[in-house]
C-alpha cells in the first residue's frame, strides 16, 4: 500500500469513503489521490502482514479496519477503506506515537 484515494463528496450529508490503492494491484481510479504519511502506511502494512502472514489478531481498537483491509486483499479486491476506519487507524497510531 502506498497511497490512498479519497472519494470526495462535498455533500456533508454523505459519508466520505477512502479507497486505498495497493501498488500490487496497480488499479487506476478516477478518485482524488491523497497522501497520508509514510508512517501511517508503515503501521497499516505491518498490522495487515502480521495478521495475514503470522496469524496475529490485530489490537482491539483497530481490529475492524485491519480485518476489512485483509479481507479485501485476500479476495483480490481493491482495498476500500471507509473514512471512519482511516480515522480509527490514525487515532490508534497517534495514541501509540507511531506517526
Amino acid at each position, binding site marked *: 500500500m502506498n497511497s490512498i484515494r479519497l472519494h470526495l463528496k*462535498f455533500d456533508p450529508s454523505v459519508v*466520505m469513503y477512502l479507497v486505498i490503492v495497493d501498488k500490487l494491484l496497480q488499479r487506476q481510479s478516477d478518485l482524488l489521490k491523497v497522501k497520508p504519511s509514510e508512517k501511517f502506511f508503515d503501521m497499516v502494512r505491518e498490522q495487515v502482514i502480521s495478521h495475514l502472514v503470522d496469524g496475529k489478531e490485530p489490537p482491539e481498537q483497530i481490529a475492524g479496519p485491519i480485518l476489512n483491509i485483509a479481507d479485501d486483499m485476500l479476495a483480490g479486491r481493491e482495498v476500500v477503506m471507509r473514512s471512519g476506519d482511516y480515522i480509527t487507524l*490514525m487515532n490508534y497510531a497517534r495514541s501509540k506515537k507511531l506517526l
Partner: protein
Amino acid sequence: MSFEGFPVVMGLELTLACNLRCRHCASSATGITRRNELSLGEILGICDQFPDLFVREVDLTGGEPLLRPEWQQITEHLQRMDIPVRMVTNGLLLEENARQLADSGIATVGVSLDGLEKTHDHIRQRPGLFRQIISGIEAALDKKVPVAVITAVNDMNIAELPALRMILQDLGIRHWQLQPLFSLGRARSDGLKLSCSTYLELGKYVHRHAPRCQAEGITLMPADGVGYFTDLDTRDRPWRGCSAGISSCGITSDGEVKGCLSLPEQFNEGNLRERDLWSIWFDESSFSWNRKFSADNLGENCRQCVFGPQCKGGCSVMSFASTGLLHDDPYCFHRLTSRNHPL
C-alpha cells in the same frame, strides 16, 4: 456516528495587519497585527499537519497576506506537499510582488475590485487606489499570474457591475467572483449596506449574465453562500448547507481554528499552540453548531421553509451578521422571491 469529514479547503490568515482601512472590512483590519501572531516555523509546522487531514486547497488571507514577507516560503512549502495555494489580496502590493507570485506557482490570486473608480476608492478609503489596482493586475497578468477579481457587492456598487465587467474583459480577467457584503466589523459601523433588493439584483445579474460572460471567456461566479433553491441559484449542485467545520476550516494568524475565517471569534474551536489540528478537528464538541444541526435550530426566516432541513439555514456568516443567529440567513432567493415577501 462520529463525524467523518475532512477539512479539504483551508483558509490560512497570515496576518491581521492590513495596509488599507476598507469600509466593509469584516475583520476590522488595521495596520496592527494580532497579538502574538504565529511565527514562520509555527505556520510551517501547522501546514505539515494538513496531509493527514486531506487538505486539498489552502487559501492565504489576511489582513493583507502580502504584508507577511514569508508568504512565498509558505506557498512553496504547501506546494511541495501537492497542496494548491490561492491568495486573496487587496492588490496594493500586487505590482511589486508580481514576479514572486508568478515564480511561486500560486494557483489563483484573488484581487478585490469593488466597483468603478470613484466607488472603489471610496469604499477602500484611498484616492487613486483603483488605478493602482488596475496597474497591479496588468503587471500580474503580464507575468502570467492567474488573477481572479473579487467584488464585494453592496447597495453602492450593484449598478456598476455591467460597467465593471467591461473593464475586467478588457483587462483579460478570466474569473470574477461576486461576494455579498457581510455586515460585520467595519461594514456595520461605516454604513455600507446590502439590502435584500440588492441581493436579489445580484442573483438576477449572475443568472442573466453568467452564460454570456462564459461565452466571452469570463467565468462569473457567485460566492459559495449565494442562493438558494431557485432558478437564480447557479451552482452545479443544490446547496446542502454551510461547509464550515464540515469540509472547510480556517486558521487565524494567532493559531485559532474556526469553521470559516469570516465567523467572529466566539466560534473559535481551539488554538493550534495548545492542541494539534487533528485533535481540534475531530473533537466531539468541535463545530457542534454545524455538525449537530437539526431542523429545530432553524431561525424565524427559515423555520417554515420546505428546504430548511437540507439548506440548514444558509450561509452561517450571512445569517449571524444579519440576525445574530445561525441557521437563519435572510439573504435567500427562495425567501425573497416567495409571494409573501415584501421587498
